[in-house]
């Protein structure tokens, strides 16, 4: 039976040249380490189904993500993990062989397509078949790095862009068209992943540490971390956690929630601005709530996977003012609200849990 979903292949750019022109033992060992790093980080709802040389094949059925843009976060995360591993390996090697000295010639590209596929199993061998799988295969074998000007990229087909509702975000991407025999023309958009890694590298970690915590509230959600991430970052779910009347996200990245996004939480007549100051998908996000007279209160939401479920930990910092007196006044004002805030978050967590149960019970 065929079904619809996202088909993804992560493939090393420069793989063949690297293996052919360097010492095979070391070169293969480097490639294997990088593949293992990717495999360790391919988590639900992504389903790994096979390796082919330097290409990792993954798919996820349609509807696995609430916000389909989350798939883009997954890809960027995988890219950063790859880049970090490669950089660490390169920094730590003392070997002077060609393979170890030229490992940074490797890069990672992703091809993502949306379409129909059919899972087939013959003996122990599993594979996906269908015309859309062929499109994916042709695209990943097609060398386009020169045309799009980067070796680390995510190439999304038009079908994928539409399914992910990314149309507004293609402005920053490079349009690319490919034509294959029997498959016709395929329009794609390529996103350069180098700036993503550069930003990640420069990013300062901003979190509320356990030592600085004013209070913590923990809830277990029976979903994978990628989905749990959506249940804490999507404005509608955030509204439920915070018992607000309405939460609106104002983004500065073509509709994509992330670093710099402001959530405006309406509680009756009051509107509270909360700005995302650190965004590390599927691990944590840190948000600063604006308080009167330019005071702030920071909280971090940490996600920790436990088997099939994810622990969501809200860790709140005490209010901070512009000076000592301001801080003292703010804390005196907010201290009595601690119990109420904890209850709100606990009740909010229960509402989200109910929603998840409803979603899971739905066909």
């Amino acid at each position, binding site marked *: 039976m065929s079904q619809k979903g996202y088909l993804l292949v992560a493939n090393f750019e420069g793989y063949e040249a690297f293996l*052919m022109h360097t010492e095979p033992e070391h070169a293969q060992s480097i490639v294997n380490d990088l593949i293992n790093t990717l495999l360790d980080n391919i988590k639900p709802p992504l389903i790994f189904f096979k390796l082919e*040389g330097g290409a990792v094949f993954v798919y996820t059925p349609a509807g696995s993500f609430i916000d389909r843009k989350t798939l883009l976060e997954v890809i960027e995360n995988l890219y950063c993990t790859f880049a970090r591993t490669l950089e660490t390996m390169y920094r730590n090697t003392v070997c002077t062989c060609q393979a170890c000295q030229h490992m940074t010639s490797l890069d990672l590209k992703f091809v993502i397509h949306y379409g*129909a596929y*059919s899972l087939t199993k013959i003996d122990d061998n599993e594979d996906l078949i269908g015309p859309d799988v*062929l499109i994916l295969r042709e695209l990943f074998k097609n060398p386009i790095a020169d045309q799009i000007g980067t070796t680390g990229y995510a190439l999304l087909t038009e079908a994928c862009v539409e399914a992910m509702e990314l149309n507004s975000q293609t402005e920053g991407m490079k349009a690319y068209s490919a034509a294959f025999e*029997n498959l016709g023309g395929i329009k794609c958009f390529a996103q350069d992943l180098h700036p993503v890694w550069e930003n990640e590298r420069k990013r300062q970690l901003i979190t509320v540490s356990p030592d600085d915590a004013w209070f913590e509230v923990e809830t277990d959600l029976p979903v994978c971390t990628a989905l749990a991430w959506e249940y804490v970052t999507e404005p509608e779910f955030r509204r439920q956690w915070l018992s607000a009347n309405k939460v609106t996200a104002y983004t500065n990245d073509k509709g994509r929630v992330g670093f710099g996004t402001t959530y405006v939480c309406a509680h009756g007549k009051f509107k509270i601005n909360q700005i995302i100051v650190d965004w590390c998908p599927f691990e944590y996000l840190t948000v600063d709530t604006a308080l009167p007279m330019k005071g702030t209160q920071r909280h971090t939401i940490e996600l920790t996977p436990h088997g099939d479920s994810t622990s969501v930990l809200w860790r709140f910092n005490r209010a901070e003012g512009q000076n000592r007196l301001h801080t003292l006044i703010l804390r005196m004002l907010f201290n009595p609200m601690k119990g109420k805030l904890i209850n709100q978050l606990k009740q909010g967590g229960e509402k989200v849990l109910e929603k998840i149960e409803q979603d899971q019970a739905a066909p």
Partner: protein
Amino acid sequence: MAQESGYLVITDISGYTAYLTSVELEHAEGIMKSLFDTLVKEMQSPLTISKLEGDAIFAYAKEGSFVQGQTLLEAIEKIYCAFAMSLESMQRNTTCTCKACELMPTLDLKFILHHGTYMLSEIAGRQELSGTDVILAHRLLKNNISETTGVVAYAFLTQACIDAMELGEMKEGMKAHTENYEHLGEVSGYFYDLHGVWERARESRQVYVDPDESWFKVEIDVNANPALVWDYLADPKLRRHWLQADGMTVTGSNKGRLGERSEYHCAHGELTVIQTIVDWKPFEYMTLDVSFAKDQRFRLTTRLTPSNGTTCVSWYFFKLGGSNFIETFLTKRKTSKMQGMLSDFFSQGSNLLREMIERDIREGKVS
């Protein structure tokens, strides 16, 4: 990570993309599954499947998994014939007029065979093959053979493969071909058309001694796969050894390749026994008409039956007659007298065969 050398074999369904993109996926699914089932089932020793790769199956044969180069050709031809037969029987048995069924004949098969080194490493619980030669074999899937020659179903063997298989004059029946690839440079080799192989297989009649009608039989179990046992039965040098002949020559081979109408000339002292191959179904059975003298003739089918990692080798004997009733009567009577001698001789020979194979496996000469 272990480095090994051996044969890399890619079996690729040609016409797959055009087929899948022009037919109903739901219908095509069953057809493709059935074809892949056939291919996977046929892809046995000396080949080991590494993985399915979309429209292709990547397999390999370790060094020493066969003795004579011809065996690898037999293996891929057997796969091709099974594929062609499966496709033909699906076509014959369908009355469906959908595009998926109608366009089945547009599918065909090609093989890429290369010899080289590869690294075996375990990733995600599976044995992965990698290395320059693995890349080369895959690159060869995109070639100009069909465009320049019009041959759709073929086996392309790289020069490295031809050399390792020691094909010698067997390659004379093949056509030379060269490809050029970035990072790899020029890759030359030989290819041959597989349609002819299937046509011959379809036309060939089956000749074998039915176990129920056999004169007598000799049987032995050998701890090896059928393809390897086949090599020891077929290769003249090895055959000479377990048949304890003083000499063994072959006539009637097709450019060095044994098959129907080839003859083993087995010298035992002054006596030359002529064994004419009348049916040749690699890894399953071979039937030979054996002639000691004009009036001492019998038919011998050697059948291989795999069972749990071992192969049962059975020799079925059948007395041959003459051109008329009297000649038949006399020949069969004279041949009957040989039963004790033949039975002893083949019992000894079968033990020798088993010892040879199991010793060679123990010593790592073959696997």
